């Protein structure tokens, strides 16, 4: 079966499972300023095109989004599976669908980056017990602005007055873009700006007016919000995730008390702290507290490649002149690759990269 590389079309059906579709580069830079996995970014640079395989979990998620009722509270979807199965790629596939449909996409590329290796932890300006992360917050605001430029400059307005410090505040009725710019320039209050932004979007998503928008909240590695952090306060006591402003506000976003959108999340063991490598089920990775918070949710399992998908991936690499070793182009070599990778997408990619 030859993988037909179709131009991007959001009307994918089951017949196209295993085939690749290309994301045009203009949309790529806008939709995913840094949302894609690192190895996929390297692959895009090498092959000069962004080809994503259409797989069953992504199609399932897109079909749920098409059929959901957006007058009811937001549904939570969790993509889970073993390490390297394609959870982040399925999420990116769905997010591309959302952005082509004109939704407002709120994408946290990896929540684990917010709970570890933070260079600057400031005590929060608004609440005494919380801790701020100015660098991560301003970086995220920059990416958010690139993704949702057209929403910020025109449509959405703030609903109340926000006071950042003694001298700076944003008035009621100003466009949200102004608030985001303020957060990017005044790095000290950027975490508070993120919190205010999330609150505004939550209140205004799915309104009845004609310029209502649908909100897609996408968090990769959602188990970071309920795990432990590797950060320490100045007196060397450990920080719990609730002490961080960014995490606290994001948790409020993940509660299903708002209407007019969907919450798409992924579990991830690779960036997680203090979790064993073999853990991949929601109960293991989220823990009791996380599971109770996320319950009820729609679980979507992501598995390794099926025979057809493996064949398609192999033919794609051959077509792009990526499999160079003469033995890997034979039938014997293909069987060896199948065995060595045991159909895991990321292991197959790493194997093919040096063969």
């Amino acid at each position: 079966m030859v993988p037909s590389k179709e131009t991007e079309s959001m009307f994918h059906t089951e017949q196209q499972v295993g085939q690749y579709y290309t994301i045009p580069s203009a949309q790529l830079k806008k939709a995913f300023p840094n949302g894609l996995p690192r190895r996929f970014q390297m692959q895009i640079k090498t092959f000069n095109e962004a080809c994503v395989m259409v797989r069953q979990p992504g199609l399932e998620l897109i079909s749920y989004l098409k059929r959901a009722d957006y007058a009811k509270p937001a549904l939570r979807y969790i993509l889970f599976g073993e390490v390297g199965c394609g959870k982040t790629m399925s999420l990116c596939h769905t997010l591309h669908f959302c952005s082509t449909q004109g939704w407002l996409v709120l994408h946290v590329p990896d929540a684990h980056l917010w709970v570890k290796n933070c260079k600057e932890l400031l005590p929060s300006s608004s609440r005494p017990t919380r801790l701020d992360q100015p660098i991560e917050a301003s970086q995220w605001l920059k990416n958010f602005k690139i993704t949702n430029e057209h929403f910020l400059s025109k449509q959405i307005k703030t609903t109340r007055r926000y006071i950042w410090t003694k001298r700076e505040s944003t008035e009621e009725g100003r466009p949200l873009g102004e608030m985001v710019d303020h957060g990017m320039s005044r790095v000290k209050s950027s975490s508070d700006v993120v919190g205010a932004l999330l609150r505004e979007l939550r209140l205004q998503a799915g309104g009845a007016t004609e310029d209502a928008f649908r909100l897609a909240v996408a968090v990769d590695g959602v188990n970071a919000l309920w795990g432990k952090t590797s950060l320490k306060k100045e007196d060397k006591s450990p920080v719990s995730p609730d002490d961080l402003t960014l995490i606290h506000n994001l948790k409020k976003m993940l509660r299903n008390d708002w209407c007019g959108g969907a919450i798409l999340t992924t579990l991830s063991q690779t960036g997680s702290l203090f979790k064993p490598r073999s853990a991949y089920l929601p109960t293991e990775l989220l823990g009791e507290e996380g599971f109770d918070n996320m319950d009820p949710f729609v679980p979507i399992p992501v598995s390794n490649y099926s025979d057809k998908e493996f064949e398609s991936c192999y033919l794609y690499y051959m077509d792009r002149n990526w499999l160079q070793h003469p033995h890997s182009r034979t039938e014997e070599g293909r069987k060896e690759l199948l065995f060595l990778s045991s159909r895991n997408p990321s292991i197959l990619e790493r194997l093919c990269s040096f063969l």
Partner: protein
Amino acid sequence: MAATIASLLKPWTPRLCPVRWSRYNPYYLEPEPRREAYAAPEAELTPEERELKTTRSIKAARANDNSSPYNDPIISKFINMMMQDGNKILAREIMTQTLEAIKRKQVEKYHSGPAAEREGIECNPYAIFHQAIENCRPVIGLTSVQKGGRSYQVPISLTDSRRRFLAMKWMITECRDNKHRRTHMYEKLSQELLAAFANEGNVIKRKHDFHKMAEANRAYAHFRWW
């Protein structure tokens, strides 16, 4: 017959015992990792081959020799030479990352350039590696010969294994010493290998200097007696 074999296999130590040489009794045969050698069914073997299989002892196979066609002896040798403190896993990681880096650079050039140039771009990292090491091999070497109280540098021909060893050694020391401290080894190696493939770069320069020294000492060539 059993008595003669037993007498050949008795405990044997070599007369000289250097640390890294093999301690095997010379009667032992080398292991054969390739799958094709065992493809013929037992009925088709000649009596000599059958005797070889049943009675002769074979040395233990090395851990990095496998029957897969993906196995490459030159690459294994290079990995062993790069290995430090017995950390084979790290050395192999560096090697695979190097091959990947070379392939990425070449495939990127392939896809982004015009269609006319595509034939000329070599994308196979193994071919590039082999050709680069081939280009770095010196043809003639120098050795020290003592004559009349003084030692002279005499040009001699080198064996194949010595040439391969020198090429790989120069490549590794060049990448370890003469590059910027903060770059990764695989980046340094991939740059140097691609340069050697095109017959440029520091390792090729070192080979040329080596040849020039041998040429300069041509007068002493008659000191060689073997």
